[in-house]
């Protein structure tokens, strides 16, 4: 499926991780526009103003973490598509996020093939 008209928001305080995710998104032809936010506060603001088709949300961030930002985004838009990004298999955090409405999660370090599949799968969801 061609997602070239899609817009994806990448929320992560680490510029390196934003670069890696952008690379995966572009490499898989998943979006024509990629927006970045450096923390949860910026992420929520970007969601409100840019209305992306998909959000990747890092869990551990200063100034509003991923769970706080997810909660805020789901309030704004219950149909929002958010994929959580965690650095370890933190089952409890992932479970909390899924209960709040996150669609899926990916774990650092990234398996590029798997990340592309997860992003593609969630983009295709309603």
């Amino acid at each position, binding site marked *: 499926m061609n997602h070239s008209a899609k817009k994806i928001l990448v929320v992560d305080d680490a510029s390196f991780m934003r670069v890696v995710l952008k690379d995966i998104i572009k490499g898989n032809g998943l979006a024509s526009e990629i927006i970045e936010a450096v923390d949860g506060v910026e992420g929520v603001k970007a969601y409100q103003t840019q209305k992306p088709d998909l959000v990747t949300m890092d869990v551990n961030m200063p100034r509003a973490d991923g769970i706080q930002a997810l909660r805020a985004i789901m309030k704004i838009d219950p149909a929002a598509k958010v994929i959580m990004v965690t650095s*370890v298999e933190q089952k409890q955090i992932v479970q909390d996020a899924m209960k709040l409405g996150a669609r899926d999660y990916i774990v650092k*370090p990234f398996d590029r093939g798997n990340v592309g599949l997860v992003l593609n799968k969630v983009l295709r969801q309603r």
Partner: protein
Amino acid sequence: MQALTLTGNELGRLSEVFFKCISTKTVDALSMLLGEPVRCSVGKIRLYDFAELDELTPAFADSEDMSAVYLRQSGDIQVGVLYYMPKKEGKRFAARLLGKKRFGAFTKLEQSSLSETGNILSGSFFGALAKEQNCKTNADVPGFAVDTFKSLLEFQAVEIGITSQSLIACSAEFHSESDLKLRMLIILDPANAKKLLVKC
């Protein structure tokens, strides 16, 4: 007040736990980050008095600055981790992560790549430790610094071992196929080491 100490048997058990976590999950994570095979060696665990901390300085670290990432885990157990390598090696490492062939002064992006490496490796290590010893940990945001090894260690040592005036330290070295080397130093005070052995 009598200083808390660990027996040889306890240090041995702790060594086995750390070895298991490092040689499986942490190595796998680094290998995935670099996109190449990585081998590791894990050193002996020892109890150091604050006065003995100089003994932790590796020979190569005496005369040059290190690029380092440090972070602390809190929760059931408080542990400090320092990842370090000579500054030039750090630049080569960052260039590898970013797919660059050349490197110059540390850019913010290169610093970020090293910080995230520390974050990811610690996530793998502490995730494995949490499963192994049934303890919950919360990660700090990683910090990046370029400084002498002594200064880098002192900062962590004071934060971790100020009450006991001593530290348990375990070092590991990772060596990639393209000859990148990264060192990891795990430090905790005796009280937290004892807690870890009891399986929270």
